[in-house]
């Protein structure tokens, strides 16, 4: 047996999971309330080994506050449901170990600030689902006989964007909408720039969404402060790999004289405007369907 003995000897280190000091008691200050207001309520409970913040919230639910509202699903950092602000920082509760927080101090948990509170830690994130309907759909080039071929190297950037778990922490932290509800009308937010970038860089996609990205999705509002990148639990380089390239492509679509000349000579179609792209959005298809028509193919 190769490497048998060292394998058996390599038990995981226990110290990283030790209960935080401070008498072994946790003080959790959790925001409780609804759309009409609320306040922090403090809960005290014993510290246990190896817990994440969501475990502690669940223990409070089970023993002290049965109706404490919290959204969660997988508890493994894969679904992006349990987003909140822990000690003021936007994070996933299921991936934040208690041992990484300052020992002995109270831990505050509040709902994401950019979205209206429903109850306690649960917010109304429907804005995001509305924006999703406005994204012009994937339109692949015709399938050749024998199927599509794509090189691994050509899809890796797209795969980075597909890691998005839609936790909406980037939306929550983006200052364009965090304290400016009015901007939600004309600004899609970092999550959807990632989605637009993924379509823009997809080797099979044929639709030009560049002017739409600027005219309807409002990418110009972003002044690349990188707050979104910092809070992304999936380490997607939102600003560098999605937003900045998108901004460059938007500029190209509008002002590039070489591209303009190329279009003149080669008779390539001009970049599509927002109005032209609109029929490809879920919202448009939905409206058509409600009129009793078939969705466009």
């Amino acid at each position, binding site marked *: *047996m*190769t*490497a*048998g*003995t060292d*394998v*058996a000897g390599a*038990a*995981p*280190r226990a110290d990283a999971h030790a209960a935080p000091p401070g008498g072994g008691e946790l003080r959790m200050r959790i925001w409780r309330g*609804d759309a009409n207001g609320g306040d922090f309520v403090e809960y005290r409970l014993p510290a*246990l*080994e*190896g817990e994440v913040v969501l475990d502690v919230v669940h223990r409070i*639910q*089970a*023993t002290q506050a*049965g*109706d404490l*509202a919290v*959204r969660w*699903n*997988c*508890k*493994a*950092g*894969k*679904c*992006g*449901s349990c987003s909140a602000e822990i000690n003021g920082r936007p994070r996933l509760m299921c*991936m934040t*170990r208690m041992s990484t927080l300052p020992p002995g101090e109270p831990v505050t948990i509040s709902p994401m600030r950019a979205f209206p509170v*429903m*109850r306690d830690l*649960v917010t*109304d994130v429907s804005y995001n*689902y509305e924006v*999703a*309907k406005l994204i012009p*759909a*994937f339109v692949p080039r015709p399938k050749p006989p024998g*199927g*599509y*071929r*794509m*090189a*691994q190297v050509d*899809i890796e950037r797209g*795969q980075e964007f*597909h*890691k998005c778990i*839609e936790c909406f922490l980037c939306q929550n932290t983006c200052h364009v909408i965090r304290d400016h509800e009015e901007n939600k009308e004309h600004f899609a937010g970092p999550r959807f720039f990632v989605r637009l970038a993924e*379509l823009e860089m*997809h080797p*099979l996609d044929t639709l030009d969404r560049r002017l739409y990205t600027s005219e309807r999705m409002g990418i110009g509002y972003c002044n690349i402060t990188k707050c979104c990148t910092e809070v992304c639990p999936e380490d997607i380089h939102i600003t560098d790999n999605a937003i900045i390239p998108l901004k460059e492509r938007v500029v190209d679509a509008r002002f590039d004289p070489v591209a303009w000349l190329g279009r003149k000579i080669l008779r390539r179609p001009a970049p599509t405007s927002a109005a032209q792209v609109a029929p*490809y959005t879920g919202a448009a*298809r*939905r409206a058509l*369907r409600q009129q009793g028509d078939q*969705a466009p193919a």
Partner: protein
Amino acid sequence: MADVETHQYDVVIIGAGGAGLRAAVESLSLGARTALVCKSLLGKAHTVMAEGGVAAALGNVWPQDNWQVHFRDTMRGGKMLNNWRMAQLHAEQAPDRVLELEEWGALFDRTPDGRILQRDFGGHRYARLAHVGDRTGLEMIRTLQHRAVDLGIDVYMECKIVRLLNDGDGAVNGALGFWRDSGRFVAFGAKSVVLATGGVGKTWKFTSNSWESTGDGHALALWAGADLIDMECVQFHPTGMVWPPSARGLLVTEGVRGDGGVLRNREGERFMFNYITPYFAAETADTPEEADKWYDDKEGSRRPPELLPRDEVARAINTEVKAERGSPHGGVFLDIATRRSAEEIKRRLPSMYHQFKQLADVDITAEPMEVGPTLHYIMGGVRVEADTEATTVGGLYAAGEVAGGMHGANRLGGNSLSDLLVFGRLAGRAAAESALGGAKASQLDDALVADISGHALEFFGNDGGENPYTLHQELQDTMQSLVGIIRTEAELREAKERLGELSERAKKVFVEGNRSFNPGWHLALDLESMLGCAWCTTLAAIERKESRGGHTREDYPKPDPELEKVNMVCRLRDGAYTVTPEQKPVMPSELRKLFEEDQS
């Protein structure tokens, strides 16, 4: 309906994981008015947690692969208890369903010549799983979600269905639920209802399943009078995390073993060589040298025993731990660090790297993981007609994990994601065709709606009653300790006793607070579903006096050839559960030949 919000559709689909979304896409593209109702936000369903890949005989890596080989692997993996027709449809149609995802924007990992790459998994003769690193489920759910949104789907998110509604003659004509946000009731009228609610994992203590997996669809079907089959067949995935305690049960993908990882006990022994059963001996390597060669030479060597089907590996780990040859925290070691380069591990298994680093502070490129069995999947479920997924109740369909039959007594890894696609589509198609082909919408029954909503609200009045969280823990402890990997008659009967008590206590659950986003209330209602499923599993496990696949009886350690021919059928009649062995469909001779030619 007097004061209940009501919506009328052709097709209402309950559950928005892979099966529900695929059914919705199909139903919409056939032109049916379709609603998707889900307990969580869209895109959060348990499908996002699927890791290793989707099984389909594309033949991109091994051209020898085809649907017959996949079919044979699936049936043998399921210890022949599978519904043969479902297994056939699944193997035949899975490749088209995967290629279709690509047309909708999915980005699977590629072969050097630019086609979809496929990886090795347990029980599959050839590398067969199309994948995206180790987050294939996320790719699948997001692709289907975008597709459904593009088609203009109506989604009712965070809406829990409490009961199905019927037309008075037993046929389903809708469903009653409530908005989790406000607690207000909402009724759906439908010509067809598709159940796509997933599994039952939260009934056990250590599970890889997410919050939603409370057996809602199984229970809704049971209450509506439908048959459930093979509920005793649950799968313990061999490799869940065992430490730290809060992460216990979290899935460690089979892809770790597919990519070369091996299992060792505390002595460092690759113990799986000691657990090769006669059933799989002919196709399993018996030396480490042969096993290691297999990854590159499928024809000249046999499969490593670490890649035996999941039931075999889970039992082996269980035995090692019981014999005190386990790891410090009660599991065994899963070692990929000494087998593959750090760079390759991070590229092929990024989520696993991340998960262990963040939750256990273990670097899997340098140290072994500690793993042990975790409840992962239920093979049993609602009895359906293979080609249409129609249940035994009119107007009701079921697809995905909630449906039974496809996987027999044990599911092969990767066959779940393909199941969702193949049968989600067939269910959506049959439901839409029935609705568009002249089925009439019937009036919803006001009195029934009032009854159900009244019942759901009773918990608020049970002052001084049971805490739902405590009751849930007791149910989980009962199932974990008495209806686990290895079962005995005495323990199953004890479980039955305890379920009797728990069911009585569940009626007295008290919910504090009000109806607005109240998790205590949601749990009280989920408990009803979980208890229904726990009853079926326990009673069917008593009835199946043999060991087969995921159902292992210490007192009946061998398979009984007679019991291979029957499904255990669970029904609820006048408040009493019944379990009846009934003949399952017989495989036609031309398919049976696939098994005769290599009894090797």
